[in-house]
C-alpha cells in the first residue's frame, strides 16, 4: 500500500489559494473512489508565511500522512527550498514558469499563458495535477460546475476553459509520472475532516445547544454545527468567554437541551470550574478539546496530544467522567454520538480529545449508518410522584431521575454546594458521604460501558505499538513497515482513554514481546496513566512534540534509534 500511494504537497503563502486547489483535488479524488488522507500545515497568520496542503492518495487505502513527496506544487518560491529534501526519486515539481524549477525535475507551468487572470491559476494547477494523475477530468469539471454555478455560466465556462487548457498543455509536455491505479472503492464516499465528523456525530445524537468561544483548532466543530443549525433547530451562542460557554451549556442542559462545547487547551483551562460544576450538579455536558501544542498559547496551528492530563484531572474534587479519543473519521462520528449518550446516561461531563491534525485532516469515508445508531437517553419531562420528586435521589447505580424544570408541577433544585437529595445545600457531613458515594457509583457504570482498546493483529510475541487518538493510522502503517522488515508488530489503540478497565488490555501488554507507547507529547501521559492504574511499565516510548503529526517513518526511525 505504501509504495502505490502518491503524496501530493501543495505549498504556498496563506491567501494564495492552496486550500482551494487542495480541497478541489481531494474531493474529486474521493468522488472518483480513491482513498486519501489530507494533512494541513499552516501558520498563525492570515496572509503570507508558508503553508502546505498535503494529499496522500491511494487506489486501495491510506492510513496516515507520509514525509516523502511525489508531486510538489509550488505556489511560492519558498516551497521548493523548504521541501526539496523530501522529494522521492520519481518526484515532479510543478512550479510557475516565471519562477523556475531551480534545477529540480518537473514542469514549469506557464500560468501567464494559460490564465487570462491570476485568479484562474488554481484551475490551471488542477488541470496539470489531473492530467499527471490520469484522473478522469469529469470528476473535476463536475465539481467546478457545482462550486461556481451560483456565480453564473460565464464564470463556470471561464474556469473550465483554463482547466482544459492546462490539461492539454500537460499532455503536450509528455512528463513522465505514473498514473494512479484505478480506484477500488465502489459507491458513494464522503470527504470530510475530523471536526466535521465529530459535529455530525453529535448532531446525530441530538445535540441542540452549542455555546463556544472561538479557538483554533476547536472552532471548526462549532462551525460545522452552525452550518446546519437552522436546518436542525440547534441553538448556538458565541459566549463572552470560555467560562460563560461551559456554564451556559450547563444551564441549557439543566433546562433540557443537549449541550456541546468545543475548544482547545487554553480555552479548556478556563472551563475547568465548569467541569467540576458539571460533576457536582450531575448535569451532562460534552466538551470537545482539540489539542494543540502548549504551554500557554504554544503553537496555535500545530498538533500535539498533550492535554490528556489536563482533561483527566480538570476540576477540583472527585467525580466521574469519561474521555474518548477518536483515531479516524469513523471514530470521530461514532464516538461523538457515544459521548453525548454517555453524558446523558451518567449525567456527567464527557470529553472528546481530538487534535489539530485530525481536526484539519480531510479523509474519505463510507457514508455513516444513521439507522444503526443506538438511542440516546433523554431527561424526564414527567414524574409519577410529583410531590416526592428528588433530583438527587440516592440509587444503587448512582444515577438519579433527571427531571427538566417547567414540565411537571414540582421544582428541580441543583446546587454546587454539597446538597441533600432534594438539591438544597447542606453541611450535614453524613449526607456529604452519602452523596459522594452516590456520585462516584456512576463510575462503576461508566467502566462497564467503557470501550476496550482495539487490538490490530496478535499481541503474543510481537512488538505492541500502543497509542491513542489520532496516532492510530501512523502506528498501523509503522507496524506494517516493521513486519515487512521481519519484526512481528501489532497495534493496540485506545479510543477511550478513561475510565480504563485493566482486564481488557493488561493480558495483551503482558503477552507482547515488547511494549512501546507512541504518543504525541513529551512526558508519556497515557503511559503514566496506564502505569498508575495497572503497574505496567512500557519498554520504550516514541514521543513527538515538534508540532507535526506522526508518520510511520517517524515512528520506525525512532524505534531504530532506541534499538541502537
Amino acid at each position, binding site marked *: 500500500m505504501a509504495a502505490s500511494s502518491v503524496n501530493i504537497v501543495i505549498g504556498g503563502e496563506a491567501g494564495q489559494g492552496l486550500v482551494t486547489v487542495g480541497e478541489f483535488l481531494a474531493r474529486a479524488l474521493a468522488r472518483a473512489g480513491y482513498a486519501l488522507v489530507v494533512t494541513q500545515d499552516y501558520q498563525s497568520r492570515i496572509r503570507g508565511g508558508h503553508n502546505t496542503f498535503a494529499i496522500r492518495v491511494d487506489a486501495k487505502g491510506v492510513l496516515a500522512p507520509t514525509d516523502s513527496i511525489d508531486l510538489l506544487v509550488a505556489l511560492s518560491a519558498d516551497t521548493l527550498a523548504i521541501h526539496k529534501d523530501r522529494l522521492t526519486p520519481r518526484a515532479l515539481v510543478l512550479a510557475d514558469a516565471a519562477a523556475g524549477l531551480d534545477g529540480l525535475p518537473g514542469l514549469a507551468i506557464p500560468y501567464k499563458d494559460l490564465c487570462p487572470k491570476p485568479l484562474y491559476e488554481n484551475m490551471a494547477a488542477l488541470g496539470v495535477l489531473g492530467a499527471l494523475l490520469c484522473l478522469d477530468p469529469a470528476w473535476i469539471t463536475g465539481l467546478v460546475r457545482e462550486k461556481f454555478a451560483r456565480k453564473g455560466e460565464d464564470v463556470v465556462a471561464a474556469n473550465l476553459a483554463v482547466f482544459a487548457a492546462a490539461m492539454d498543455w500537460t499532455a503536450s509536455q509528455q512528463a513522465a509520472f505514473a498514473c494512479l491505479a484505478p480506484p477500488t472503492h465502489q459507491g*458513494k464516499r*464522503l*470527504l*470530510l475532516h475530523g471536526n*466535521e465528523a465529530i459535529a*455530525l456525530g453529535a*448532531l*446525530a*445524537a*441530538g445535540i*441542540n*445547544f452549542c*455555546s463556544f468561544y472561538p479557538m483554533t483548532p476547536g472552532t471548526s466543530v462549532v462551525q460545522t454545527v452552525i452550518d*446546519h443549525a437552522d*436546518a*436542525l*433547530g440547534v*441553538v448556538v*451562542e458565541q*459566549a*463572552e*468567554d470560555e*467560562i*460563560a*460557554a461551559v*456554564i*451556559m*451549556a*450547563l*444551564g*441549557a*442542559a*439543566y*433546562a*433540557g*437541551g443537549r*449541550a456541546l462545547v468545543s475548544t482547545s487547551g487554553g480555552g479548556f483551562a478556563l472551563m475547568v*470550574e465548569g467541569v467540576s*460544576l458539571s460533576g457536582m*450538579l450531575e448535569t451532562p455536558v460534552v466538551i470537545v478539546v482539540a489539542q494543540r501544542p502548549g504551554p500557554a498559547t504554544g503553537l496555535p496551528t500545530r498538533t500535539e496530544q498533550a492535554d490528556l492530563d489536563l482533561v483527566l484531572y480538570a476540576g477540583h474534587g472527585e467525580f466521574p467522567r469519561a474521555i474518548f479519543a477518536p483515531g479516524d473519521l469513523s471514530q470521530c462520528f461514532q464516538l461523538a454520538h457515544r459521548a453525548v449518550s454517555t453524558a446523558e446516561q451518567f449525567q456527567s461531563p464527557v470529553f472528546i480529545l481530538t487534535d489539530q491534525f485530525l481536526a484539519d485532516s480531510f479523509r474519505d469515508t463510507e*457514508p455513516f449508518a*444513521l439507522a444503526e445508531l443506538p438511542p440516546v437517553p*433523554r*431527561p424526564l*419531562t414527567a414524574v409519577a410522584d410529583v410531590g416526592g420528586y428528588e433530583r438527587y435521589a440516592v440509587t444503587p447505580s448512582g444515577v438519579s431521575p433527571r427531571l*427538566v*424544570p*417547567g*414540565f411537571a*408541577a414540582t*421544582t*428541580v*433544585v*441543583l*446546587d*454546587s*454546594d454539597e446538597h441533600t437529595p432534594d*438539591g*438544597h*445545600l447542606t453541611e450535614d457531613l453524613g449526607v456529604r458521604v452519602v452523596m459522594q458515594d452516590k456520585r462516584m457509583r456512576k463510575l462503576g457504570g461508566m467502566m462497564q460501558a467503557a470501550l476496550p482498546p482495539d487490538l490490530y493483529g496478535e499481541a503474543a510475541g510481537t512488538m505492541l505499538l500502543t497509542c491513542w487518538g489520532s496516532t492510530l493510522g501512523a502506528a498501523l502503517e509503522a507496524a506494517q513497515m516493521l513486519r515487512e522488515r521481519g519484526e512481528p508488530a501489532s497495534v493496540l489503540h485506545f479510543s477511550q482513554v478513561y475510565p480504563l478497565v485493566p482486564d481488557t488490555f493488561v493480558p495483551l501488554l503482558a503477552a507482547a514481546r515488547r511494549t512501546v507507547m507512541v504518543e504525541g507529547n513529551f512526558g508519556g501521559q497515557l503511559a503514566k496513566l496506564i502505569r498508575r492504574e495497572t503497574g505496567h511499565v512500557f519498554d520504550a516510548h516514541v514521543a513527538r512534540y515538534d508540532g507535526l503529526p506522526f508518520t510511520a517513518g517517524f515512528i520506525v526511525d525512532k524505534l531504530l534509534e532506541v534499538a541502537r
Partner: protein
Amino acid sequence: MSAATPYGEFETAWCPGCGNFSIRKAVVAALTELKLPPHKVVFSSGIGQAAKAPHYIRVNVFNGLHGRSLPAATGIKLANPDLTVFAESGDGCSYGEGGNHFLAAIRRNIDLTYIVHDNLIYGLTKGQASPTTPLGQKTKTQPHGAPSQPFNPLAVAVTMGAGFVARGFAGDIEHLAGLIAAAVSHPGFALIDVLQPCVSFNKVNTYAWYKERCYRLGNDHDPADRRAALEKALEWGEKIPIGILWKSDRPPFGPTPKAPLATAEPNMAVLRDILESYA
C-alpha cells in the same frame, strides 16, 4: 389543596437583621402578584449569602458558581423560553467575578431579571471591599481604605442601553416588589440593583444611612429619557434615587427556539441530506 404560600417557608443561614430577608419578601410578593406557579420559575444564582436566596423560595434553582449566575440563566432561557428566569446574587459575585457576564447580558438583552443584592461589601468572606465599596472606605483587607473607584452598575447599564434599569432598597419592600414585577414584565434584560445594609460588616451604609438618603423617583422622571436616567444613575451621596431609572424598547435576544429543547428530536431525514452534502 393549594399552599397558603406556594413559595414556601424556609430556615435561613442569614444574620439576624440582614437585608436579604426583606429582598426575599419582595421577591415572593412579586411572584404572588404575577401569579407565577413555582415550577415555571427558575432562579440562577452564584455564590455568597445573597446567592442562597433562591434556596429559601420554592422555585426551580440552579445554584452554581461564583460570578456565573448570568451564563447559566442565559443557557436556561435559551433552552426553554417558556420559563420565567431570574438571576440573583450579591455585588461581588455580579460585578466582580461576573463583570464580563454582566456586560454580555446587557449587550444580548436576554429576557431575564437580574436581582443584585448590593451591600457594598463582601459579607460571606467576612468583610473585604467589593466592586461597589466607596473609594477610601476602610475594611479588614483594605486597611488604608478601598483603593479603587467603585463600580457604578446603573450608570454602566444605562450607558450601554440595557433593557431595564432600576434601583431598589431593601428597607422599602413594597416598592421593591413593584420593581421586580415590572422587571419580569419587561421583555429583555432587567437589572435591579438593590441597596442593602450588611449589618455585620458594613458599619457605614446602615439602614439609618440609607433611610435618610433614599427617595422614590416620581412621575416627573421619564425612564425613556436616557440623559435623565444617566443623571439619576450618577446621583449618590446626600440623595439616592430608587425606582425605574431607564427602560428601552430594544427587542430581546433572539432568535430563541420555538419550543423547549427538551422536547425536540433530531430530524434524521434532514441530517441524512446533510451527510450526503459531504460527498
